[in-house]
């Protein structure tokens, strides 16, 4: 074996044993700090949320009052118009304040995206004055997009209305019972 070995303390230009071990140690320490930081960070990202489920039942369709019903703890407006049902979120799309259902003194004739509609009520946000038409379309204030519509369904087991706040739907959605 005639391999040129590094002199003690380095100096041959090639990596000496000492500096290799030093570098290895440094990398070990950095890896340790990195690993521990990741552990600390990851432990603070919850794996299980004990929040209310996104799908829930709200009673039979016939029990629901005609017009708008506000589900306080869900911040959700559920509408019943004869046999059709739909649900609009009450959370403002600007900064998440709860919008207020505001009945108009007299029906307003408005043009929403090319469609002429008569509306009897609107949603007004108390935080920064955003305003939405009856279908949730934003028309004034800082809100950047319409209120979210959520999916409604009829539960197959007991015929109750089933709200799914995990699934967004468009403004044409109607559940007909």
């Amino acid at each position, binding site marked *: 074996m005639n391999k040129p070995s590094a002199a003690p303390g380095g100096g041959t230009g090639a990596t000496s044993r000492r500096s290799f071990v030093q570098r290895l140690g440094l990398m070990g320490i950095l890896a340790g700090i990195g690993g521990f930081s990741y552990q600390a960070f990851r432990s603070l*990202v919850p794996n299980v949320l004990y929040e209310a489920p996104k799908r829930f039942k709200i009673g039979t369709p016939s029990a629901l009052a005609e017009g708008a019903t506000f589900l306080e703890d869900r911040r959700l407006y559920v509408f019943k118009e004869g046999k059709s049902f739909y649900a609009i979120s009450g959370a403002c799309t600007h900064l998440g304040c709860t919008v207020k259902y505001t009945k108009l003194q007299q029906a307003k004739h408005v043009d929403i995206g090319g469609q002429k509609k008569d509306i009897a009520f609107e949603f007004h946000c108390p*935080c920064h004055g955003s305003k939405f038409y009856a279908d949730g379309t934003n028309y004034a204030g800082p809100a950047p997009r319409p209120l979210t519509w959520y999916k409604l369904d009829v539960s197959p087991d007991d015929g109750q209305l089933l709200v799914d706040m995990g699934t967004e739907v468009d403004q044409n959605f109607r559940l007909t019972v």
Partner: protein
Amino acid sequence: MNVTASLRSLYRKLTWTWNPQSDKEAGDAIVKNLLLHWFPNKITKGSLSWGYSFYLGTISFVLLVILVVTGVILMFLYVPSVERAYATVKDIEFTVSFGWVLRAMHRIAAHLMVATVFLHMVRVFLTGAYKNGSSVGAARPLNWIVGIVLLILTLLLSFTGYLLPWDQLAYWAITVGTNIASAAPLVGKSLRFFLLGGSEIDQNALIRFYVLHVVFLPGLLFLLFSYHMWRVRKDGGLAIVDHEALQQTTEQAAPVKAKTYSLLGITGQTSVHVRTAVVDEEKNSVPSAPNLARRVWLVTLLTFAVVLALSLVFRAPLESPANPSVTPNPAKAPWYFLWLQEIVTITTVSIGSFTVNGAFVGGVLLPGVLIILALWWPFRDRTGVNAVGVWFAPERRWQNRVFIAICLLIIIFTFVGTFMRGPYWTLFWPWESWPEMPVKF
């Protein structure tokens, strides 16, 4: 021996290693003294002046001490759980002896600290005190950056404390605040989720804000604060010292007799190298103890008195318990964020079908730009050494004007947001009354 004398000797035993008999000894003692080791041995008269610094940094520190003391007592009385937080704060306010004073002092000191730290920054900018002068090894721009971080930490401390009472005010201020955070591009949504420990403001959010408020942020603040103070010493003291150094006049020192040895013996002459000039530095400085110490104690007493007096007049409010389904009308962020709330309200812009949320412009982009500008400014400012440590240096006229304009805009927006925004965020004059608003759907 009477009681005061024995207390005094006990205090001396605990804090001084010996009893100084002269200014020089007292100066030496400062290095060995626990409380005074921040102070230099001697301090220039300019650094002592009220009109240069307004002692705003000192006041901020005193407020911090008041906050820590009242805060620790409040920690014994407060329970950070969704079920009990509101009730314990109500107890502190109405049943605990002097609880209301402690809470009011904690709140007033917090509000004042936001204000004094901000004013301290304004002072440092307008006097060009973030600039290196003639002292060797100075890194004032670095200390300016530390100061900006301390300002942000102060705001975050105040903001995290806002949620703890778990009343309507707290809940909706945090709703608005964390939704602003979620407007940040890419990471916004996950940032809010991480901050709240979920998608709603609930128990996870409360305990996170509590731990941030009482452990994490104060710890970071103290660490950076001690570094901030240490740097002030290492950077040659207040910037006015550099200014004073430029003003120093030299005077001829009296010639000193010297002996010159020549071959012929000793010739009586004065040598060239002792014909020297002395700067009047010595005349312009005084020992820190008692001159600086006296003023710092005075500022401490006055600050404490003002906080106590304000707390007796302005009780800390407690609204109805947090209710996620009812948004108060209007819902406002803490006052020092109202300029941002004012801006997030008016900056939603639509270009065709593409809409930029005002929350992004006013809540992320603008503050981000302001912070980056502030961090970068000391390196951009290339004015000379004459502009260091003087109020409104002519050389820095334009940057001072722009800075004042930005500060005034922030103050005006804060005023409008605080006093002139009523229900649905519509404008009212401060003397106009707001219309009655139904609280429920």
